[in-house]
């Protein structure tokens, strides 16, 4: 399951999806929205995606993880639109026979998401808003 959705993400849905009787471990990673960034007090966050390509890239990350580690099943769901502070913006779940693979694959997935998946976060803070991005090492489009 590799999806972008316009609704809150339910971790239980992902856990059920990756559950496998042959697996001895399920690792979950939940990325949540933070109320501060680089000294700014963040009041709201909004995510936008190129949905067709984002889902394709998420699936590519899953396929790459399956080549690197002995995992059973993987699910990645990223939320779009406005996300309240403290809510989940992304959830990853991985099942595997042994725990090392599940931990490693979930770590790999979140790092890859931040590099290549066409999803963008706009941060609204006290006094302005900014599109966050790492390709220049600093915030872009400061208004």
């Amino acid at each position: 399951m590799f999806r972008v959705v316009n609704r809150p993400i339910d971790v239980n849905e992902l856990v059920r999806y990756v559950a496998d009787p042959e697996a001895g471990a399920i690792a979950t990673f939940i990325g949540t929205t933070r109320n501060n960034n680089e000294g700014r007090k963040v009041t709201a966050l909004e995510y936008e995606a190129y949905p067709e390509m984002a889902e394709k890239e998420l699936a590519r990350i899953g396929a790459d993880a399956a080549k690197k580690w002995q995992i059973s099943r993987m699910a990645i769901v990223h939320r779009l639109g406005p996300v309240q502070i403290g809510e989940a913006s992304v959830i990853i779940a991985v099942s595997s026979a042994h725990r090392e693979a599940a931990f490693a694959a979930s770590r790999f997935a979140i790092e890859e998401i931040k590099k290549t998946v066409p999803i963008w976060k706009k941060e609204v803070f006290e006094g302005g808003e900014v599109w966050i991005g790492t390709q220049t090492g600093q915030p872009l489009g400061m208004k």
Partner: protein
Amino acid sequence: MKIRVKFFAILRERAGTSEAMKEVAAGSTVADLWRQLQSEYPGLDVPGIRLLYAVNQNYVGLDYKLNDKDEVVFVPPVSGG
């Protein structure tokens, strides 16, 4: 050739639209299209921005040769997670 261009995030805001159909000469590359768009939408020139380029949902290089009906996205710095 007709090319569908989609804009997202900061480039969508700078272009003032999320999508445009563009006519380009045969043999045009992604770089040629980007120059054409920049003259049409001066706001796309964001100082210091580093873009990735996607044609039909795959990352390509600037010298990629476009085909009729391709869908092109200039990908601003991603920030999912």
